């Protein structure tokens, strides 16, 4: 090779290096998403185990990050099965940092945090709720294209655990905007039907009845379209019926409780369209039709939830022994008499059937209400806290939050909250001087048949001493609070 | 006659592993004519293989010039017309002889139509037809050498470099190689042979050069180099006295069991010696011009060169 050729080759090499340098620009831009980081840099704050030097571990692991993460997760699961919950938190953070796309880790990890840190009485540690939310929000930021974690956050945590139905509806709504994906190929797949159904339920529980109605209608339309494609599929028939029944009942209740006659009529139509109605169902439907016609004829509307029911709430507490508190009292929800003359009776027949029984066998109370109790540091007010959960990884181990609930039976309740087990010392440190003993009942958490009488917002609920209309404006609840000193408890 | 190889002031220095420099070839001047068999001799480490590698373009001179068939050493076009049989050739062991020749044929860009016939003919010529499809790792040294010869003839070269072509071969194989070299000359080809087998070189070579410690110590036509002005006289039945008289006339004289071997120069001296021996009653056995062996020349040159 002569000198000219050699010079030419050298120049070509340098020129190519320059081209390579330019080519690296677009590659570098797209690169972060293949490393499991969002190109917009969002969603990383909450898992800041990360500092630059730790990139070495990731780099050094080269092709094994995901496998290492998977193996670590198996370890975490072992810890859980052995009842050792403490290591799970840092393990979850490490695993999700190594591999931000292992969906099951986020969902199971958050489930552990919310549900499985339990004391000797199986009461879960509320201090882990913010980290659970933090974990899921991070998981959502890193896996924002699929429905899975949105649904998990909305259903498992906000709806089931925290019972913040508004937030639940928000997150499940987001889930319903995202597709499912084939876990092996990533191809878009049909989102399972339960997502859209649960959204309708969530809207109902959150009192967003118009949205619930529209969502049920959407679900019904989807089921009908699916049924046209597969007319012989019995699961689709069942799915359709469930949707229609739920919508029908929602509309009927709006009619009975609040006098919405358009809803009442629509509800009747939906119930009428159900397939395979039994004799009782048919009788109930006929009853509803007659009732509707009667009201129409009279030119009036039902108003089951309007007349006030006095909850007649009373409560006392006493220290049985150190860290053992007994609470008892009365909550008059709901006496059987409260159901007399309700519009919903045309459908349920509950009152008349109860009255038809011999005196000794009659049900005196419609039970189902729960009184919720929190004994915690003074600065912790659960009712405001639950609506404003700030997702964070920090757990304040000096905090004390004991939460329980008691079923109201026949207008009375009684519970002993025992925090004295030595194993529970870390759960309830009682490090502060002042505490709050908070009790409440809210109609949103009550069964339908209770809401039928007192309304979803507590429109028909009153109490002489403990009615609260300020904690959640527009809502009526029963609330009682005691301020305790440390010596009152220990 | 045209010049096949021309070397002018060729020097090659290597960096010594212990530091400093090693001069493998030192200001070598040499010419090889087309159509001749040229013997390139020297002790181990003299620089023979280094010179050949420079001529083939495998390594590069530190200074000086070398040309092959009129082009600078290493020229790609020239390589189409030359070939090389290295000392103890190494080939890809997984290949058979046939595959090996096909491989080299591709490197020579021999057209496919000609390739098959040429390969078959060559295998037959070197006596490897039966073993042609066995992997080379099963070949003996002699068979490998024959495979090497075959690849060296593949392109029907004008100039062939043979480095120790008979080393490690049995006498028959020796003879085959020597015959081959003579055949090649008869075809008008130039053969450049580097060898320690001086008897073989003496037999086939037209001209030789002797390299000692990288320097050219001797070169010339074989006939001339080996021929002397002396005449060898052999006689039987020679007495000690007569031998003593011959000794004073001859350059060299040796008496052994009545047989006298003497080397004399000049016609007069020869005549006087014959007369002497005849008068002494000896029987003349032989009178020949004296030839040196190449081996002797080589040893003298190398020792003298040191």
């Amino acid at each position, binding site marked *: *090779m002569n000198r000219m050729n*050699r010079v030419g*080759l*050298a120049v070509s*090499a340098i020129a*190519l*290096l320059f081209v*390579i*340098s330019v080519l*690296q620009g677009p*590659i*570098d831009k*797209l690169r972060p998403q*293949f*490393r*499991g980081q969002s190109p917009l840099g969002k969603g990383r704050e909450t898992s800041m185990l990360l500092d630059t030097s730790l*990139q070495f571990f990731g780099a050094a692991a080269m*092709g094994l*990050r*995901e*496998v290492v993460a*998977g*193996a670590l*997760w*198996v370890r975490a699961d072992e810890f859980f099965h052995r009842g050792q919950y403490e290591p799970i938190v840092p393990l979850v953070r490490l695993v999700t940092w190594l591999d931000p796309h292992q*969906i*099951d880790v986020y*969902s199971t990890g958050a*489930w552990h945090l919310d*549900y499985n840190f339990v004391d000797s009485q199986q009461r879960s540690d509320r201090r882990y709720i913010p980290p659970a939310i933090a974990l899921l929000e991070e998981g959502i930021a*890193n*896996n924002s*294209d699929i429905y899975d974690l949105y649904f*998990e956050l909305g*259903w498992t945590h906000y709806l089931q655990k925290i019972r913040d139905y508004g937030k639940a509806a928000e997150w499940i709504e987001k889930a319903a905007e995202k597709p499912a*994906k*084939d*876990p*092996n190929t*990533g191809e878009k797949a049909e989102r*399972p039907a*339960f*997502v859209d159904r649960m959204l309708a339920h969530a809207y109902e529980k959150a009192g967003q009845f118009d949205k619930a109605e529209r969502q049920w209608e959407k679900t019904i339309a989807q089921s009908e379209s699916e049924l046209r494609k597969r007319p012989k599929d019995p699961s689709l028939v069942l799915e359709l019926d469930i949707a229609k029944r739920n919508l029908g009942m929602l509309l009927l209740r709006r009619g009975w409780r609040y006098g919405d006659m358009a809803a009442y009529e629509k509800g009747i139509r939906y119930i009428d369209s159900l397939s395979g109605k039994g004799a009782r169902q048919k009788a109930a439907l006929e009853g509803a039709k007659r009732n509707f016609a009667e009201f129409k004829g009279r030119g009036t509307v039902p108003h089951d939830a309007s007349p006030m029911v006095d909850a007649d709430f009373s409560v006392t507490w006493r220290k049985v022994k150190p860290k053992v508190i007994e609470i008892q009292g009365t909550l008059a929800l709901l006496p059987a008499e409260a159901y007399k003359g309700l519009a919903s009776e045309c459908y349920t027949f509950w009152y008349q059937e109860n009255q038809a029984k011999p005196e000794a066998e009659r049900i005196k109370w419609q039970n189902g209400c729960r009184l919720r109790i929190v004994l915690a540091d003074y600065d912790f007010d659960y009712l405001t806290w639950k609506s404003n959960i700030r997702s964070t990884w920090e757990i304040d181990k000096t905090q004390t939050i004991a939460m329980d609930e008691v079923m109201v039976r026949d207008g009375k309740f009684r519970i002993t909250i025992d925090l004295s087990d030595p194993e529970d010392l870390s759960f309830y440190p009682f490090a502060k001087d002042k505490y709050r003993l908070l009790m409440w009942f809210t109609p949103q958490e009550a069964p339908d048949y209770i809401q039928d009488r007192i309304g979803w917002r507590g429109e028909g609920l009153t109490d002489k001493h403990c009615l609260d209309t300020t904690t959640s404006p527009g809502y009526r609840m029963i609330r009682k609070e005691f301020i305790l000193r440390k010596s009152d408890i220990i | 006659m045209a010049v096949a190889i021309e070397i002018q002031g060729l020097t090659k220095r290597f960096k010594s592993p212990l530091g400093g420099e090693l001069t493998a070839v030192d200001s070598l001047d040499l010419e090889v004519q087309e159509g001749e068999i040229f013997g390139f001799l020297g002790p181990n480490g003299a620089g023979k293989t280094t010179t050949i*590698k420079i001529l083939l*373009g*495998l390594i*590069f001179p530190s200074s000086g010039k070398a040309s092959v068939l009129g082009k600078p050493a290493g020229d790609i076009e020239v*390589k189409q017309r030359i070939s*090389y049989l*290295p000392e103890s*050739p*190494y080939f*890809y062991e*997984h290949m058979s002889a046939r595959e090996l020749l096909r*491989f080299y044929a591709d*490197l*020579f*860009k021999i057209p496919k139509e000609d390739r098959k016939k040429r390969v078959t003919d060559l295998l037959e010529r070197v006596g490897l037809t039966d073993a042609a499809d066995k992997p080379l790792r099963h070949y003996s040294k002699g068979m490998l050498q024959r495979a*090497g010869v075959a690849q060296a003839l593949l392109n029907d070269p004008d100039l062939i*470099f043979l480095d120790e072509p008979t080393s490690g071969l049995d006498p028959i194989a020796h003879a085959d190689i020597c015959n081959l070299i003579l055949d090649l000359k008869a075809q008008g080809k130039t053969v450049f042979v580097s060898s320690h087998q001086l008897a073989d070189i003496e037999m086939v070579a037209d001209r030789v050069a002797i390299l000692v410690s990288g320097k050219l110590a001797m070169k010339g036509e074989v006939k001339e180099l080996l021929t002397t002005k002396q005449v060898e006289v052999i006689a039987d039945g020679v007495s000690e006295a007569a031998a003593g008289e011959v000794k004073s006339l001859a350059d060299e004289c040796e008496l052994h069991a009545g047989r006298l071997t003497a080397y004399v120069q000049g016609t007069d001296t020869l005549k006087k010696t014959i007369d002497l021996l005849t008068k002494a009653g000896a029987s003349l056995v032989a009178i020949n011009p004296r030839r040196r062996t190449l081996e002797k020349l080589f040893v003298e040159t190398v020792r003298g060169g040191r």
Partner: protein
Amino acid sequence: MVIWTIAKTTVGEAMRKKILNVFLLVAIAMIVLSLSFTQLGFKQDMTIVKGLGLFVILVAGLVISLILCVSLIPNEIERRTIHTILSKPVKRYEFLIGKYLGGLLTLLINVALMGTVFIIMVAVKAHFSSAVTGINPEHVPGGAGAVSGTIRPAAFDPSLVLGVILIYFQFFLLSAVVMLFSVFLTPTVNFFASAAVYIIGSAAPVWESLYAEKGAAGPFVKGFYKIIHTIIPNFDYFNIQNRLIHPTHEVRSMPLYVTETITYAVLFSVVVVLIAVLIFEKREV
């Protein structure tokens, strides 16, 4: 042509190298064995199967390309087989590129074999599995009932093919580097030098984060890192494991990214081979 002839011969020789075949067989065995992992649910199992499988191909590819290429040129020189080749009308660059091409083809055969087995194993596992979607039934006392279901995952994931291709091109580039070093380094030194280049090139995120950190460095330091970023081959580009193991994670412009990365590999290899050619022209054999 000459380059192709030399390449073919190189492949023939390499495929008979016992040590490479041992690595290939061990890798394939490990990929098949990973199928037996059935600890947790489908998604977790698949993480292990895919992650391990890709890792095995990566390591095997690394070892094969190092072992194969460190001796490509030196072996020829040591055994002197190069003499009977370069004494023929073969240009030095033809020899070099022919050897490189042969190495690439050998690597292609090995990676293709491993990749095929891997993709088949993943497809087999997927075909006989189902995945839970929605709330894990174990998380809800009494079962998840209305809020969970099962998906039958599709068996063949085409993105795995892209992943294997990218692994191949990673070693396409590494082989060029190894071959460049083999022109002037002994095989042992070359092995460690090339391994070092691979590790440094794979730790590119570290360089990048140092380079990208705002306010941390002046223009000289930044310029220095930019040069390092350009001249050290970035092997990290080829790692898309996360996307392959979690195909549900959407990435923008995957085909574009793959194309750009392959182009990068080819261009960079050309540069390296050019430098190797220049050095080899003057290499005494």
